[in-house]
């Protein structure tokens, strides 16, 4: 199933001097050169910078220094995460040509481990979309069928990993943007617990929902990258130190048990099956659950009764937060500016810069969010959604009293055709139906490829209790072996 090298393959190869980090990087650039014209995963290639990073790794190895697992590992970074001195656009014309003056904490941590950054990957503008079609710069194709979307918004990162244009990648997930493209492209993607990974240097979309997460070929690789980027950061006040499982308290219960499949209690929420889900996808997910049950796990039907309100709740909250976050693109400090000679009015600079710089979906969300926060509507929309958010969160808290993890499909369907939903914003929003609740509740969740429907991958979502990423990985590793 795994195409190309995993992190441990690379580590072994470098240690045994089968290849150098520079040769490896060169090889990946060759691959990108031959594949990416068709796939469109990358917005920016950073060949010189990557090769000098790789050179430093080779020097350390030749000096006999012990290098970390991630040393020399070629990675791709979603283009809404800042890599110092490399262009960063969030796939928006409003940031065309913007050079990152500082580095995201997650990237800094990976750089310290010796990871090599090959380039920046395509996305839906500012992370707003489920197909990567909302990029202002290029289309990205699904490597399993180029007439179909890769999912989104981290579509470029998922494609780069799936097509082995890199070993692993970073994405960001606000309502499913790591998990859904991972599922559509047949790779592993993790949305960590809210706060587990610093958001410093991630271009903000919806601050109470955004998390950076790894996209990789295997559970092991996703875990290595997650462990490298997690942790409290003084530069992100919402980040926390991931507690040891034995110290976890709170509404999710204190008990911690080593994950043994025969002890595992798996919740299957009835609201995630039936109406609206492609029958082939449902069949594959149910077969996977059966396989796990055969190994001794206890399967329990559960209810998350407020699931049907998740999309409405999510889109009110994320557009409200986005309308505030995107106010910073005003043509004054950086990015596109229509501040031209002869123009006297500051308001005109704002209006024209934003009219020209933002794409249709971003404008739509700014409008929705501004509407939801405006006088007279605040209580009916934003405050109401925050209260429904509490109910959605409580649904999970109740469910996790009875079960250890929850299994659902990642998406109700496999990758759809390019162009199929782009003219129907509401249909695109409904693509997030199985993923958005997890962000509202702040929980960790993994997307794991489990089978294919025709040539298109289907992903299983494993939702865990807060800060129990290690348990999710354990469960995932087990399933990875049996599917």
């Amino acid at each position, binding site marked *: 199933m795994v195409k190309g090298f995993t992190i441990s393959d690379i580590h072994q190869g470098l240690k045994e001097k089968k290849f150098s980090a520079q040769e490896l990087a060169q090889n990946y650039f060759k691959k990108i050169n031959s594949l990416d014209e068709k796939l469109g995963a990358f917005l920016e290639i950073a060949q010189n910078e990557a090769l000098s990073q790789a050179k430093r790794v080779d020097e350390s190895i030749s000096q006999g220094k012990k290098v970390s697992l991630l040393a020399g590992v070629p990675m791709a970074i979603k283009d809404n995460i800042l890599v110092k001195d490399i262009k960063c656009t969030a796939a928006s014309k409003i940031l065309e040509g*913007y*050079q990152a*003056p500082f580095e995201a904490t997650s990237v800094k941590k990976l750089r310290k481990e010796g990871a090599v950054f090959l380039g920046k990957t395509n996305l839906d503008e500012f992370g707003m979309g489920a197909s990567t079609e909302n990029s202002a710069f290029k289309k990205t194709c699904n490597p399993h069928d180029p007439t179909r979307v890769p999912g989104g918004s981290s579509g470029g990162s998922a494609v780069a990993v799936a097509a082995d244009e890199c070993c692993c990648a970073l994405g960001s997930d606000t309502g499913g943007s790591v998990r859904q493209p991972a599922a559509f492209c047949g790779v592993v993607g993790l949305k960590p*617990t*809210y706060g587990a990974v610093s958001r410093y240097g991630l271009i903000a979309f919806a601050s*109470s929902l955004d998390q950076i997460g790894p996209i990789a070929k295997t559970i092991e690789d996703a875990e290595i990258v997650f462990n490298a980027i997690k942790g409290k950061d*003084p530069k992100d*006040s*919402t980040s*926390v130190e991931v507690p040891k499982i034995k110290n976890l308290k709170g509404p999710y219960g204190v008990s911690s048990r080593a994950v043994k499949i025969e002890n595992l209690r798996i919740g299957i929420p009835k609201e995630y099956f039936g109406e609206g889900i492609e029958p082939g996808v449902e069949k594959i997910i149910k077969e996977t659950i059966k396989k796990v049950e055969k190994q001794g796990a206890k399967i329990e039907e559960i209810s998350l009764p*407020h699931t*049907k*309100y998740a999309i*409405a709740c999510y*889109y*009110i909250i994320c557009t409200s937060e986005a*309308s505030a976050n995107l*106010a910073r693109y005003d*043509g*004054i*400090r*950086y*990015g596109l500016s229509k*501040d031209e000679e002869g*123009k*006297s009015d*500051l308001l005109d*600079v*704002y*209006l*024209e810069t*934003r*009219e020209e710089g*933002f794409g*249709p979906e971003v*404008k*739509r969300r*700014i*409008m*929705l969010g*501004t509407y939801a926060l*405006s006088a007279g509507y605040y209580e009916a*929309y934003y*405050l*109401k*959604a*925050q*209260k*429904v*958010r*509490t*109910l959605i969160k409580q649904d999970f808290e109740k469910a996790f009293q009875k079960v250890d993890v929850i299994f659902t499909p990642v998406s109700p369907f496999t990758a759809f055709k390019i162009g199929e939903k782009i003219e129907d914003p*509401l249909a695109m*929003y409904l693509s997030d139906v199985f993923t958005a609740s997890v*962000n*509202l*509740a*702040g*929980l960790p969740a993994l997307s794991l490829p489990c089978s294919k429907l025709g040539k298109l991958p289907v992903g299983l979502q494993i939702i865990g209790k*807060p800060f129990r990423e290690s348990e999710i990985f354990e469960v995932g590793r087990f399933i990875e072996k049996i599917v």
Partner: protein
Amino acid sequence: MISKKEVEHVAKLARLGLTGKEIEKMQKELTLILNYFDLLKEVDVSQVSPTSHSILLENVDREDIFKEESPETVNKMLAGAPAKEKGHIKVKGVLG
């Protein structure tokens, strides 16, 4: 359907220039999406308090310490601005 005037009002609040065609399209699309949001009307939240952040419950304070950035970083931060003067970003008149 929300009115053209409402769309124009919200666009002004958002400092967003829209063409006539965009305003028309926005009217239709926003109406459709806002109607979908009405689904929340059926949820009884009279006894529920709002959630703004899922995990973090406490405010985080830090000492108010000024940290000087290197001139290199300052220059990089300024590099993207369209109009500058003596190390400052130049803005059009705000008042009158």
